[in-house]
C-alpha cells in the first residue's frame, strides 16, 4: 500500500486513494515538479497468488498500453517497478463512473447514451485494429468514466489480460463476470471483437433502460417494452449487438458505428417519414402519369392503388402496440388517400381520439384534426355511412363541450355540433333509414340537440337585453318573449308561467321547448350557481309539469315538443343516476 503523502519516484506525491479495483488500488498523485495530477495504479502483491507471473504479464501489457493513444483512453505515462510493488502512472480522469449515474438517476437519457455509444464504439474500434488486436472484454458502466465535459473515458485498462481470464470451471455468479457474452464462458469459440460488441450492447441496454441484465429476468428485452418512448432504431441495434451467436451480431465496430450514426434512419418514425416522402413523390408521379395518359388508363387501376395504400396505412393505424402519434399519423394519411370506403380509418381515428386521455374526450388539437376530416366525407361512397359518421362526430363534439368542466355548456356544444348534425340529417335523408338506425343513428336525438343549438343562438343574440326579474309583457313580440323567458329559466322559476291561465299557449309551448333543454343542460356549475333554488326533485317536477301541460295541448307542435321533453326527462334521470353512482 502506498502511503498518503509519500513521494514516489522522486516526482509523484500521493494525495489520496480514489479507487479500489479487483487486484489494485488507485491513488491520486501530483507531479510536484510539473504541477500536474496523475492517477497511480498499484497492483497489489498480496492479492495475487503468483506475483512473478503476473508481473511479467503486466510488463508486456503495460508496454503495449503505453503505445496506445486515444481521446477516450487514459494514457499510461510511466511504469514504476520495484521489488514489492508495480505502479502504473496514468492520466487522472475527473468525473464519475456511469454506474454511479445509473445508481443515482436510473435510466440515462437516450441522446446521451447514443453519444456515449459512439465514443465507446470508436475506442473499441481503435483497440480492435491494433496489431495484435486488443479485446477489452470488460465493458460495463463501472468502467466508463463520465467526465465533466460530457465525454467518456474507458478506464480499468491497466489490468493485465491474465486477470480477466477467469477460471470459469469454478462456480461463478452472473454479476461478477460483468455482462459476459455467451462465448466468454468457454466452449463456444474464442472471444474476439464481437465479444466486446456484445458487452457494449448489454452496457447500452443497462444505461438506457436502467435495468441490469444481470438481474431478474436475466434477459435483454427489447428496450421499448421497458420504455416505449425509446427509439426503435436503438432497440434494433441493441438486439443485434446482444445476439447469442457472434455471427449474428455486428461483425465489427465499424459496422456498429455505422448503425449508430444512422440509428434514426432505422427508426420506425424515420422510416415512416421517408415512406411519406416517397408516397408524396410517388403520388405526384402517378398524377403526372395520370395527366399524361389518364385517358388510356382505367380509373380502376388508380382506385386499386389508392385502396392498397389505404389498407396499408389503415393496418399501421390500427396496430395497438404502436404509439398514439404513429397511429394518428397513419389513420389521417389513410383518410387523406381519399379512398371512397375509408370508414374504418375514420372510425378508428375517432376511437383513438376519444379513447386516449383520462376524460374520454377530444382534445383541442384532436378537435381541429376532426375538422379536416370534413372535406373528405363528401367523397365517401355510402350515404348511410356518411350520415353515421357525421352523427358520430357531432355527438363527440357535443360531448366535448358538454362534459368538460371548463366548457361545461351543452348549449355551446350543440351549437358547435350543429353543422355536423345538419350534414348527418342531409345524408340521412338520402339513406335507407332502417339501415341507418341499426348503426345507432337517432333522428330524435339530432332534433333535440339541434334545437338546443338554436336556443344557444338566441341566447347569444340576446346578450345585454335581458333583466332577471323582468315580467312578461303581452305586448312584446314573440322573439323578445322567448329571450326573456330563457333568462328566466336560468334563474329557475318558470313553472308559474305554465300554470298561469293568462299566458298564451304558444308561449307555454316555447317554455316547454327551451325550458326542457335548459333543465337538461344544467351542469354542476350551473346547479351550484343556483344554490338552494336547484334540486333534482324540482327539475323532475318541472319536467312533469311540462309533460302534463303538453298533453293537454292539442296543437300539432305541442305533440312534437312533448316527445322531446319526454326523452330529455328520461335522459336527465339517467344522467343523474350516473352521477350518483
Amino acid at each position, binding site marked *: 500500500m502506498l502511503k498518503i503523502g509519500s513521494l514516489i519516484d522522486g516526482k509523484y506525491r500521493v494525495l489520496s486513494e480514489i479507487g479500489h479495483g479487483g487486484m489494485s488500488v488507485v491513488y491520486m498523485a501530483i507531479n510536484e515538479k510539473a504541477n500536474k495530477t496523475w492517477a497511480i495504479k498499484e497492483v497489489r502483491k498480496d*492479492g495475487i497468488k503468483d506475483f512473478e507471473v503476473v508481473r511479467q504479464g503486466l510488463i508486456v501489457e503495460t508496454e503495449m498500453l503505453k503505445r496506445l493513444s486515444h481521446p477516450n483512453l487514459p494514457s499510461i505515462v510511466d511504469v514504476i517497478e520495484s521489488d514489492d510493488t508495480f505502479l502504473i502512472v496514468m492520466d487522472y480522469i475527473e468525473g464519475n463512473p456511469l454506474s454511479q449515474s445509473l445508481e443515482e438517476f436510473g435510466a440515462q437519457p437516450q441522446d446521451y447514451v447514443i453519444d456515449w455509444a459512439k465514443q465507446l464504439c470508436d475506442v473499441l474500434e481503435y483497440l480492435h485494429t491494433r496489431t495484435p488486436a486488443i479485446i477489452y472484454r470488460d465493458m460495463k458502466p463501472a468502467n466508463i468514466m463520465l467526465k465533466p465535459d460530457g465525454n467518456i473515458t474507458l478506464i480499468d485498462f491497466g489490468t493485465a489480460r491474465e486477470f480477466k481470464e477467469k477460471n470459469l470451471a469454478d*462456480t461463478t*455468479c*452472473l*454479476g461478477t463476470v460483468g455482462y459476459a457474452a455467451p462465448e466468454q464462458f468457454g*466452449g463456444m469459440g474464442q472471444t474476439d471483437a464481437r465479444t466486446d460488441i456484445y458487452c457494449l450492447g448489454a452496457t447500452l441496454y443497462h444505461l438506457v433502460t436502467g435495468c441490469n441484465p444481470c*438481474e431478474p429476468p*436475466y434477459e435483454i428485452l427489447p428496450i421499448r417494452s421497458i420504455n416505449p418512448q425509446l427509439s426503435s432504431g436503438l432497440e434494433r441495434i441493441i438486439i443485434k449487438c446482444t445476439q447469442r451467436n457472434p455471427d449474428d451480431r455486428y461483425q465489427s465496430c465499424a459496422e456498429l458505428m455505422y448503425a449508430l450514426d444512422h440509428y434514426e434512419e432505422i427508426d420506425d418514425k424515420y422510416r415512416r417519414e421517408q415512406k411519406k416522402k416517397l408516397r408524396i413523390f410517388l403520388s405526384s408521379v402517378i398524377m403526372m402519369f395520370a395527366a399524361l395518359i389518364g385517358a388510356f388508363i382505367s380509373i380502376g387501376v388508380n382506385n386499386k392503388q389508392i385502396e392498397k395504400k389505404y389498407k396499408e396505412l389503415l393496418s399501421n393505424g390500427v396496430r395497438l402496440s404502436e404509439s398514439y402519434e404513429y397511429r394518428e399519423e397513419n389513420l389521417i394519411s389513410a383518410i387523406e388517400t381519399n379512398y371512397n370506403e375509408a370508414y374504418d380509418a375514420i372510425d378508428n381515428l375517432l376511437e383513438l381520439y376519444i379513447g386516449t386521455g383520462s376524460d374520454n374526450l377530444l382534445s383541442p388539437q384532436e378537435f381541429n384534426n376532426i375538422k379536416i376530416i370534413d372535406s373528405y366525407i363528401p367523397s365517401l361512397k355510402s350515404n348511410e355511412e356518411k350520415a353515421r359518421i357525421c352523427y358520430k362526430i357531432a355527438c363527440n363534439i357535443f360531448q366535448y363541450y358538454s362534459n368538460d368542466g371548463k366548457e361545461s355548456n351543452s348549449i355551446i356544444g350543440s351549437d358547435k355540433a350543429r353543422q355536423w348534425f345538419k350534414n348527418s340529417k342531409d345524408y340521412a335523408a338520402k339513406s335507407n333509414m332502417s339501415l341507418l338506425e341499426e348503426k345507432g343513428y337517432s333522428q330524435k336525438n339530432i332534433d333535440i340537440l339541434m334545437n338546443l343549438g338554436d336556443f344557444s343562438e338566441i341566447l347569444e343574440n340576446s346578450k345585454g337585453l335581458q333583466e332577471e326579474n323582468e315580467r312578461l309583457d303581452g305586448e312584446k313580440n314573440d322573439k323578445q318573449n322567448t329571450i326573456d323567458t330563457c333568462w328566466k329559466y336560468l334563474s329557475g322559476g318558470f313553472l308559474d308561467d305554465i300554470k298561469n291561465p293568462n299566458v298564451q299557449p304558444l308561449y307555454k309551448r316555447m317554455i316547454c321547448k327551451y325550458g326542457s333543454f335548459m333543465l337538461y343542460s344544467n351542469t354542476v356549475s350551473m346547479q351550484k350557481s343556483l344554490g338552494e333554488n336547484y334540486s333534482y326533485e324540482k327539475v323532475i317536477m318541472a319536467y312533469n309539469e311540462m309533460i302534463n301541460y303538453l298533453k293537454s295541448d292539442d296543437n300539432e307542435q305541442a305533440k312534437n315538443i312533448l316527445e322531446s321533453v319526454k326523452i330529455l326527462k328520461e335522459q336527465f334521470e339517467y344522467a343523474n343516476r350516473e352521477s350518483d353512482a
Partner: protein
Amino acid sequence: MLKFAVSGNTDVGIKKETNQDSLLLRKYSTCFGEVVFAVLCDGMGGLAKGEVASASLINAFRNWADENIMTSFTKDGGINYEEVQMKWMTLITSMNAKIKAYGRQNGVSLGTTVTAILISQKDYYIVNVGDTRAYIISDALYVLTEDQTLVEKEVREGKLTPEQAEKDPRRSVLLQCVGASENVYPDFFYGETMPDTVFMLCSDGFRHEVTAEEIFGAFNPSVLCDEQTMYSNATCLIEANKTRQERDNITVALIRSYQEG
C-alpha cells in the same frame, strides 16, 4: 411423534486446496417435538475467500436459529411461513451487503450459494439461492429446489435440454448468489413432512458425477435405517465422486424422519 436421524459429510475433493462448502445441521427439541434446521452454503471466489463467504452466512443462520427457532412455529406446530420468510429474507439481504462490502474492501469478489431447510413435525420450509439443492427421497428421488443457474433458466425456457445443460460450459454460472449480486432474490419452497422420508441437501460437487439411481439406491429410506448407515453410505458416494474426477468440494447432508415407537 416424528423423530429425525441426521448425518452430514463434506470433502474437499481432489483438486481444490480449500473446502469452501459450509454445512450446519442441527436438531432442536420444541414443545411440539423435534425439529431440524440445516443450512448448506457453497462458497466461491478466488483464494481462500469462498469459505469466508459460506462460513459467515452459515454463522448468521446459526445465530438466527439459536435465537428464533422457538418463535418460528404456529400454534399447531407447523412453520410460520410468513415470519420465517421475512426473517430469512432480512438475513440474506444484510449478509449480501456485508459480504459485498468485505469483498470491496479486500479487492476480491466472493459469494456463496445457500440452501436452508427447516423441518417441523408437520411441514418443511426451504430457502434457496444458487445451485445447492434440496431433495426428498421417498419412493423416488425428488428435487425440491430450482437451481438459479444460467443453464437451468435456459432449460426452463426450452432453449436447452436437461442433457445439454449437464454438459454446457456455463453450467456453473449462477444467476445470483449471496455476496456478489446487486440484489438477491431467493426462492422459497414448502411442503409436508412425512414419516420415513429422507431429506438431502447437497452442493453441486456431489451430484455431477453420480446418477439419480445411485443416489436413490444409497439413500432411500428403507436402506438408511440408522445414522451410522447414513454416514457410511454418504461417504461411499463421495468417494465415488472423487474416483470419477469430480473437481469441486463435495458436501451432502441427510435427514431421515421416522415415527417414534
